């Protein structure tokens, strides 16, 4: 009997291993006038830290919102651990920790009330986990949200994303507004989450950050994924730096236009 259970558990584990943390198939969101996301095919394997790169307006946040089921795709599909992000969005969110690009306004609520409010909605949040993350970022949860600096608001967002120890972290520019010390603390937290079995999908503008923490990078340009590569493979192949690879996808004209003041 015990052997059967172990076999079943093993089969389950194997199936879990086989299922991608994130998979998208021809995922599109068309806002018209050439804006949006087009035919995205993406595969993030379990326990991988995937860095999602692209300039402003390339479609990073649109991808993240599609994965979170906040917006509906124009075509294609997105799946998290095999669950349809659009149809099974409640189940998806049980397994996901999410940090939006902009923290919402919680006005006069105290940090501890925001955590209790959203933790209460989610359920199953370990108070020790909350305490641990708040303490290592020195985030005073007794203060009101409106009194927080932008960095402290970001720390609260990180706490809300990590507090329930999710299987997948979807983070939109997570270190925006964090000082270098807290950035290092965040990278450490990210490594611990990955070592604990979590997968991470993070968008960023900071190429050095992506190089530092990610296993795989995807480069997005005008709503289309133009390159996916494992950083180890790039290094082994002796390719130039990530910055050079990133910039190579933008023509000289693009770069000149971005460099010139309007």
């Amino acid at each position, binding site marked *: 009997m015990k052997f059967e259970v172990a076999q079943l558990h093993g089969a389950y584990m194997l199936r879990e291993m086989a299922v991608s943390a994130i998979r998208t198939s021809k995922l599109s969101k068309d806002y018209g006038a050439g804006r949006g996301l087009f035919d995205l095919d993406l595969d993030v394997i379990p326990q991988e830290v995937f860095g999602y790169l692209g300039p402003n307006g390339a479609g990073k946040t649109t991808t993240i*919102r599609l994965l979170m089921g*906040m917006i509906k795709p124009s075509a294609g599909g997105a799946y998290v651990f095999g669950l349809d992000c659009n149809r099974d969005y409640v189940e998806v*969110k049980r397994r996901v920790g*999410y940090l939006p690009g902009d923290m919402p*306004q919680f006005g006069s609520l105290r940090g501890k*009330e925001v955590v209790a409010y959203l933790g209460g909605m989610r359920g199953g949040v370990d108070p020790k986990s*909350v*305490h641990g993350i708040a303490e290592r970022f020195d985030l*005073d949860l007794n203060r009101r949200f409106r009194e927080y600096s932008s960095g402290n608001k970001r720390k609260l967002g990180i706490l809300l994303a990590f507090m329930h120890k999710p299987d997948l972290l979807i983070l939109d520019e997570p270190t925006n507004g964090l000082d270098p010390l807290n950035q290092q603390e965040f990278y450490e937290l990210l490594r611990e989450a990955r070592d604990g079995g979590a997968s991470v999908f993070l968008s960023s503008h900071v190429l050095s950050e992506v190089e530092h923490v990610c296993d795989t990078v995807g480069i997005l340009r005008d709503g289309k994924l133009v390159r996916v590569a494992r950083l180890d493979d790039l290094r082994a192949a002796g390719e130039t730096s990530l910055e050079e690879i990133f910039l190579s996808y933008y023509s000289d004209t693009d770069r000149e236009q971005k460099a010139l003041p309007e």
Partner: protein
Amino acid sequence: MTAIRFGLRLGRWGPLGFSFLTFASSLIQAVGFYQIAGHTAASRAAFAQSMSQLAAQLTFILPPPAGLSTVGGYVEWRAFGGLAILFGVWALVSGSGATRGDEERGLVEAVLASGVTRSRWLASRVIGYAAMALIAALAGGLGLVAGVAVGGESINLGPVVEICVALAALGLSCYSLTVLIAQVVGARVATAAAGVVLLALFLVNRLSQTFTWLAAWRWISPFHYYELNQPLAPGGAFDARATLTMLGIATVGAAVAAVAFEWRDLGAPLVRWPSRRSPAGYEASRSPLWRIPVVRGLYERRAGLATWAVALAALAVLFVYLTKTVLQPLLSIPTLSQFFGAHAGGQLFTTFLGYIWLTFAQLLFAAFAITQVARWSAEDSDGRLEVILSTPRSRASVVVERAVALTLGALLVATASGLAVGLAAHNQAVDINRERLAEGTLLLVPFALVFAAAGAVLAAWNPRAAVGLLGGLAFASYLLDELGPLFKWPTWVQDLSAFKLFGTPLSSGVDRGGLAIMIVIILVGFGASILLMERRDVGA
């Protein structure tokens, strides 16, 4: 000039919306006058007689009328009297939004960083509002002129412009007072504090008609100076001194506000209480209330709900006293006593209280529903809904939780006001039908939910436009109830108004048909809201 243009650009929807409201209000009342009062001297005299009886019951909200047999006198009382309240509310919302709301959003910081001085920025907002208020007031004048033209008559434009100038001056004085109060108190309570002050100034003036001891304090109220202007009524005149006094209040208020703005830190109030420094904490709140669906929503807005409950209970007590004070002199006239006795069927006080209090309470409960819908819209636009939906919750459950929380909130406020009425009536030793009072009070809950259901649909469809559209819907619903019987519109048209569906529960019991229609509207509204929420993009 750039700052003024920028200020006007920021508040461009206000004058458009209020211009429409003032135009519609005066046009409808002017057209209504010709429809009801007719064109003969005798019919107009009879109309004036019946309206003066109505005016006696509305002294708590409208100024005493003059020249009701003329279109000018009637519109001055019915339309421009009511518009004073509307302009006060507009000034309150606009003033606190321009001062502390824009500061919270970081807009003021950005403007000041561009080199504009604080005084200049504040002056530009006040001047911008003055221009907007004048435009909206003149739209009211235009509505009157158009209504008179429809009636086949003409009206002298001078007095029309004069009443519009007085109305704009009233709005401006309320705006400056709001801006001043918003400098002194914290951003969280700025609107509430200014609202309490403006309501107190309004009530001091209005209630001084009933409670003579208040007459000595009338001079502090800008509403008093507005009412001194009666240019449209025969024999009345534009009071230049009173209008200048209102403009003086506006100027002094703005000047003191500018000084206070220079003194205080951006984002902080002028008066700061020393806060107790508590040690840093790393724990989530241990209150179990945050874990219980619906209860957490009520707990989060506990301060707002308590304010609503206390304010409505206080107003309810005031209206009980007011009803008794208004009713007693009328009953001392034998013919009126017989008349009222025949019509009210032995429940005189209950009937009168139903008319005076529940009419007012309906407006407040509609406002309560609109404030809750405004909160839903804000949750959507500031990203809070996105974070809530990042937890394992369905969109339908969010809508249902909102609806249940609003129901319980409305029930709490209604119960507080109902108990206050009952206790005040008992204290005053007046006879009141308790069963009907309980039914009428509880009926306020589905009444509020009708607006909330409409608001839920609008918030799911277009959250940014929801509050404006719902406000327009509430106004249209009120006008429908007011004008339907006057113009003898079909019953089914009148039934489109939530105010009509509410009926007169204190005098004639709960209208079961109206209640059933309200319940259907609530269920259909929230059901449609769920469907729309499931289909729409959030945070896009």
